[in-house]
């Protein structure tokens, strides 16, 4: 898991995904393949549907059409073509880990218990095992000293690092990041991006919705650009940032640079 996986195994496969809210099409026939060990960043202006795309992957939003497979298993719809029963859905969801823009830590649990809650009550791990693993993860995100603190006492950057550890604790096959630094004060963005960069170096499969161009360029294996619900550009970061093929992306990059 910690070595960069060079095989061509597909981690996430999205086909013909469409979704609309109140008659407005947010996603239009989106296709996307993410290979194991790849880091894919999704860019686009606000309202382009990039968060919705990410939230469809673990079925927090239900697409109108199309399919999503995680490690070969379809999410949301069972073999008979019916909506998945909640227990089964929860099991597939547990194969992904999600980090939210607004952290969404559980305020009634301290940092350590935020991390061990799902491993104990979803995966059925023993308390000792879950806590040992949680402490390792806290070490990794640099939050060990705060294990007993409650979320409300932490800074935004610290909260987000705990949220990353919480998602990792489920040993997911794919990590989903929904604008993980957008709610942070500028001086706190760096510490969170550094953690995500470390994870990419360790070979985690990740899909990151972000506004951070330099970060996207540094960590991505593939950059995807969404515009009005359509993927209009998919390329390696070098090509994407230096030689984009569409006018729309060129304009977007110019605006971001200024």
């Amino acid at each position, binding site marked *: 898991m910690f070595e960069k996986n060079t095989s061509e195994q597909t981690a996430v496969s999205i086909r013909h995904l469409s979704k609309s809210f109140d008659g407005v099409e947010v996603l239009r026939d989106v296709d996307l393949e993410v290979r194991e060990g790849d880091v894919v960043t999704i860019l686009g202006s606000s309202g382009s549907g990039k968060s919705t795309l990410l939230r469809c992957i*673990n079925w*927090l939003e239900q697409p109108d059409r199309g399919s999503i497979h995680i490690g070969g298993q379809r999410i949301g719809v069972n073999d008979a073509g019916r909506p998945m029963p*909640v*227990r089964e859905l*929860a*099991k597939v*969801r*547990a194969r*992904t*880990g*999600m980090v*939210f823009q*607004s952290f*969404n*830590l*559980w*305020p*009634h649990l301290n940092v350590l218990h935020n991390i061990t*809650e*799902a491993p104990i*009550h*979803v*995966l059925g791990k023993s308390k000792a095992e879950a806590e040992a693993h949680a402490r390792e993860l806290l070490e990794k995100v640099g939050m060990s000293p705060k294990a007993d603190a409650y979320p*409300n006492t932490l800074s935004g950057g610290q909260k987000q690092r705990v*949220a990353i550890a*919480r*998602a990792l604790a*489920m040993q997911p096959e794919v990590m*989903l990041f929904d604008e993980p630094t957008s709610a942070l004060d500028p001086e706190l963005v760096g510490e969170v991006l550094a953690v995500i960069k470390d994870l990419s170096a360790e070979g985690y499969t990740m899909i990151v919705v972000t506004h951070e161009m330099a970060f996207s360029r540094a960590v991505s294996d593939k950059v995807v650009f969404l515009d009005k619900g359509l993927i209009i550009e998919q390329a390696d970061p070098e090509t994407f940032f230096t030689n984009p093929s569409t006018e729309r992306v060129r304009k977007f990059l110019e605006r971001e640079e200024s």
Partner: protein
Amino acid sequence: MNASAWHMLLEGAWTTVWISGISIAIGVTAGLILALIRIARIPVVDQVLVLYISLARATPLVTLALFIFLSAPTFGINLDRNVAGILALTLNTTAFNAEIWRSAFRNFSREQREAAMANGMTPWVTFRRIMLPQMMITSLPGLINEMSFLIKGSPAIAVIGIVDLTRVTNRISAVTYEPLPPILVACVLYMAAIGCLVWLQRIAERRANRLAV
């Protein structure tokens, strides 16, 4: 007031405490169950509960206690007066508690639920491990407030012959011909009990606010 008057008064106080205590315990639990049933929005059942809550909020406790105690025998049920009293208090407080629980559920953060689902929790685990512990903290001030109201309404059970802290003052003055002292002592005891609850409510509010930040 002599020793036996004090003794009677304390017995009356104890009656108020245990009958209120049982009603509160049942009322808080039943309120949660009703709130969950209402959230499930089962047709017919939901309308029945809305009607029950509306009626329970408008019916005076005295009237309810009399109704239960007097009409049970016509259905062939022989109700002990204490049971009738507890039933009346419980029917009343459950309606208010159900609304408190329901608003805690409805105001629960959608983001936190999403985080639970994203971590692979089923709705039941999410409810039990993430929502309920927080709902208990956020509802507690309202529930304690409702407990104060229940104690303030508890003298209603005197109407069906239960000798509670209010009624016992009649019994004492029937012997001593001095109604004022026992009534004043009863006032002090009520103030002490409700004062305690008000104090607990403040602590609960502080805890709830800490969670909300």
